[in-house]
């Protein structure tokens, strides 16, 4: 691949302007270019590219951690590690299934909640007229800068049996659960409250990845719920910053136009702001998906998979299989399955979002010529001015005090 193929659009112009000919200067640039890249190439190559290839080999071998995985007494077992993990039906499959279920509920709850909360926080602190904006932003972002270990330690205290959360609940006459020791699934608890205590025949007998469907329906355990709250607490601030940057990039003229058309604050948010934030929503959801499928630090520091394996995640299972149980092939196989899931979800999400992106644009294209301002005013019904200040959003006539 030549440099010209991928170089940015401005490159040819710059190159033409350069006084040197293509001869010796080119050669010198190439030499120093590779020299400049060398440290990075060595480090990333050695600790990123080579490891992946080596792990691919280990995932298809019967290496037990003794000696080098490349030595001659380690043999190739093909997809055996993957097979026992996904189809074996034994303990390995059950553990993997449990880990997948735990992590699936974690992703299912954390990603939407953290995205919504981050967007909410960002719109709240983006108001120009808000006093103490700096304080609020700092407060919301601070958990994101501290280490996951420190926050997990704090969480272990807050949610311990005699901890702060339960003490506060007790003052409200609620007896809190023994958070990190309660393996009961939240969905099972809800179903139990509705009178459904035992699994219906069909759900108990059929299963997926070694565990019955009824177990898949357990929901996150009480212990996992505490970790879900932890994740939302620590990541909402980071994503708030991403949304804030995007909000501030929206030109105030667009807002102004919407106000002129009589859109209420909610309509402005729903029909003007949100569509313009779509790329950021995409980023946040993608980063969220990538992150939530890799929960490790919190499990290692906190629950170590317990109680009753309800906080085991594939990442932690991969670690414990390899480093604690010396099942290196299985550990590496879990890591690659996890890798595949992350890649798949990211691609899928990209496709879904692209699909949605094209539909409204076409709709807008057809609707706008028919009734330009009414389309925006929509259900407002009232005179344009009535909706303007709305819920206290800064009106665009005010100066930018950022």
């Amino acid at each position: 691949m030549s440099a010209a193929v991928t170089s940015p659009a401005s490159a040819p112009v710059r190159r033409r302007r350069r006084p040197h000919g293509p001869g010796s200067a080119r050669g010198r640039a190439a030499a120093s270019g590779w020299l400049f890249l060398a440290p990075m190439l060595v480090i990333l190559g050695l600790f990123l590219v080579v490891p992946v290839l080596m792990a691919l080999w280990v995932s298809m071998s019967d290496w037990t951690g003794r000696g080098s995985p490349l030595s001659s007494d380690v043999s190739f077992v093909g997809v055996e590690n993957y097979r026992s993990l996904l189809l074996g039906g034994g303990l390995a499959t059950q553990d993997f299934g449990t880990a997948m279920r735990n992590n699936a509920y974690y992703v299912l709850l954390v990603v939407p909640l953290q995205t919504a909360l981050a967007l909410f926080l960002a719109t709240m602190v983006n108001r120009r007229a808000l006093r103490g904006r700096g304080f609020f932003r700092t407060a919301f972002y601070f958990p994101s800068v501290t280490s996951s270990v420190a926050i997990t330690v704090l969480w272990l205290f807050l949610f311990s049996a005699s901890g702060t959360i339960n003490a506060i609940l007790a003052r409200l006459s609620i007896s809190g659960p023994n958070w990190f020791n309660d393996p009961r699934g939240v969905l099972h608890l809800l179903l139990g409250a509705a009178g459904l205590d035992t699994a219906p025949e069909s759900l108990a007998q059929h299963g997926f990845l070694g565990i019955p469907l009824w177990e898949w329906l357990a929901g996150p355990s009480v212990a996992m719920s505490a970790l879900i709250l932890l994740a939302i607490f620590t990541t909402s601030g980071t994503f708030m910053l991403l949304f804030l940057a995007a909000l501030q990039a929206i030109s105030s003229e667009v807002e102004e136009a919407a106000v002129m058309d009589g859109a209420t604050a909610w309509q402005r948010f729903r029909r003007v702001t949100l569509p313009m934030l779509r790329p950021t929503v995409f980023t946040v959801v993608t980063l969220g998906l990538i992150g939530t499928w890799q929960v490790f630090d919190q499990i290692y520091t906190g629950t170590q998979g317990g109680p009753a394996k309800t906080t085991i995640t594939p990442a932690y299972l991969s670690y414990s299989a390899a480093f604690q149980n010396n099942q290196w092939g299985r550990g590496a196989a879990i890591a690659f399955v996890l890798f595949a899931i992350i890649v798949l979800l990211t691609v899928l999400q990209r496709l879904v979002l692209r699909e949605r992106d094209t539909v409204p644009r076409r709709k807008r294209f057809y609707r706008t010529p028919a009734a330009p301002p009414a389309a925006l005013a929509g259900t407002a019904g009232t005179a344009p001015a009535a909706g303007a200040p709305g819920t206290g959003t800064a009106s665009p006539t005010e100066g930018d005090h950022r």
Partner: protein
Amino acid sequence: MSATTALPAPARPGAPAPRARRSNRRVVATSFTYAVLVVLAVLYVYPFLIQVATSFKTDAEAAQNAVSLIPQTWSTAAYERLFLRSDFPLWFRNSVIVTVVVTLGRVFINSLAGYALARLRFRGRGLVFAGLVAVMAVPNVVLLIPKFLVIKQVGIYNSFAGLIVPLLADAAGIFIMKNFFESIPPSVEEAARLDGAGTFRVFWSVVLPMARPAVVTLVILSFQGSWNELSHFIVASQDPDLVTLTKGVAQLASGQLSQGTQYPLKLAAAAIMTVPVAVLFFVFQKRIMNQSAGAVKE
């Protein structure tokens, strides 16, 4: 952010009634906004206050009185124990060494690579860039086992080199530097080059000093990242002399080193390890708040 800007939009003469109604509604809405924000801020800040308060409580009080922000009897026992009768100072020292070396190394290596990708034209550059994008997609957790394998093979297991070297370059940092270098006008370098400066000299004395904002961003991200790193340190060594803060405190928390709950001790340890990143955060707050590409933690 002054009070005057919060007033409603320009008054229209001859419409006093709607205006009054509007400002009334506005006051309610504004108070509601502040109420929501204050409640949320308390939810975000209170845990940290509780953390500091509990670290000064006795073990018994931490269990009995978990809500109060003021200890009934102040006790520095947790801190004394940490600093005088535990490996905590060693962990702290190790974390400082690793973080400082990683941060300096990253700034240098990432900016070299970023400069080459942004400015130097040579065959294969596109390929390197594509490879970098691909490498960025590999999730960290997937690399736990493989990294351990390579660190062992290379022979730097159980050494500072094993803790530090694999962290010395990161794709995200290279992108930050590359983007910044692309925003610097090339004419600056051409002047220096006409004066006879070599490529490295142009980079080191002309371009890098101009990239200060990007360098500061990188320093913040690298410091924060390597100080808070856990999984890499777990797989890179098992020598007790090389335990970093994150690893030490994680083991302390999971009860591998102690019996009982000992919440004041654990919370004191967690609070102290938060201090350096907190200081960095408050010093560079403006910059951190304005940069959208932050390290995403999970």
